[in-house]
């Protein structure tokens, strides 16, 4: 039972206010990291789909044959089995995207993307930690 837990402690965040905020680079239909907006934009069937760094858990890549695969794992409820869940969600009963996998023949670029996403996450975690320390 998670009764009454919905939305508790969740701090609102969003990537863009409207379509005008999207960087021009998304038209290449490639993954784009927008540091300023703290956002990773994924090309999904012609859409430019932003994911705020707060929704991202981690990124990893691996090479297989001619392709490089990039996996992005997202924050979803119920991942910390046995642990006290301390990540608040706006709506824990919603459907969540848990992970995506992309592939490219350009291993070098995906390597770079993986680093950018990991760095962005580290920065966000660091800021979050600093905020907590300030609050204490």
């Amino acid at each position: 039972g998670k009764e009454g837990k919905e939305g508790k402690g969740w701090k609102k965040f969003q990537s863009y206010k409207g379509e005008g905020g999207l960087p021009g680079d998304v038209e290449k239909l490639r993954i784009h990291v927008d540091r300023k907006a703290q956002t990773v934009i994924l090309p999904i069937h012609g859409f430019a789909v932003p994911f705020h760094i707060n929704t991202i858990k981690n990124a990893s890549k691996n090479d297989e044959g001619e392709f490089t695969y990039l996996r992005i794992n997202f924050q979803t409820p119920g991942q910390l089995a046995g642990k006290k869940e301390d990540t608040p969600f706006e709506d824990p009963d919603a459907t969540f995207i848990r992970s995506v996998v992309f592939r490219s023949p350009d291993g070098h670029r995906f390597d770079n993307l993986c680093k950018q996403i990991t760095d962005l996450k580290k920065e966000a975690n660091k800021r979050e930690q600093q905020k907590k320390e300030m609050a204490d």
Partner: protein
Amino acid sequence: MAATQFDPIYRGLSPEVGKMRVAGSGMAWKGIDTGEVIAVAGGDIKSAQWLRVARGFQLRLGLKDRKRQTFDGFKREDLKKVTELLKNHFQITLEEIDVSFKGWNWGVTDFRGQDLAFLVSGKMGFEVPLRNVANSNIAGRTEVSLEFSGPSSKSKHAGDEMTEIRFHVPGVMSKAKGSEDGSQ
């Protein structure tokens, strides 16, 4: 009647740029490199939608026989012109679809004809055609995965290709809780 031209316009997800002409008889797209022509007779257009995608705005035409053509690359300023052309030539009302840019990974999945849509705050997040789904799995009690088969381009200039997406669906096993229906 004089034709109105839009350019550059992409057809579907192809990287080829082309020109789109709209006249009283219908619309036609012509690729610059291949010279390929896609013509749509005015009488075959049943619906039209306008939405922001990666390559500018998309004009999505619903045709007879439940077929569909999509054209990307329109500019925000083209909306008025496209609205008028569709209305005057084909008596079709252009419907604007709201797209979410919140950056959230939670929402509602909705099966719409041949597509699976993911809606964020009641707005479109993205759509994937179900015919591209090569495999689906229920992995664990609350997880659904979709694997995609696509044209695997080995060109370094091609777009990035999503091969898998996994959803966390809390309601799958315990339907008891009355969550609000996202019938947007």
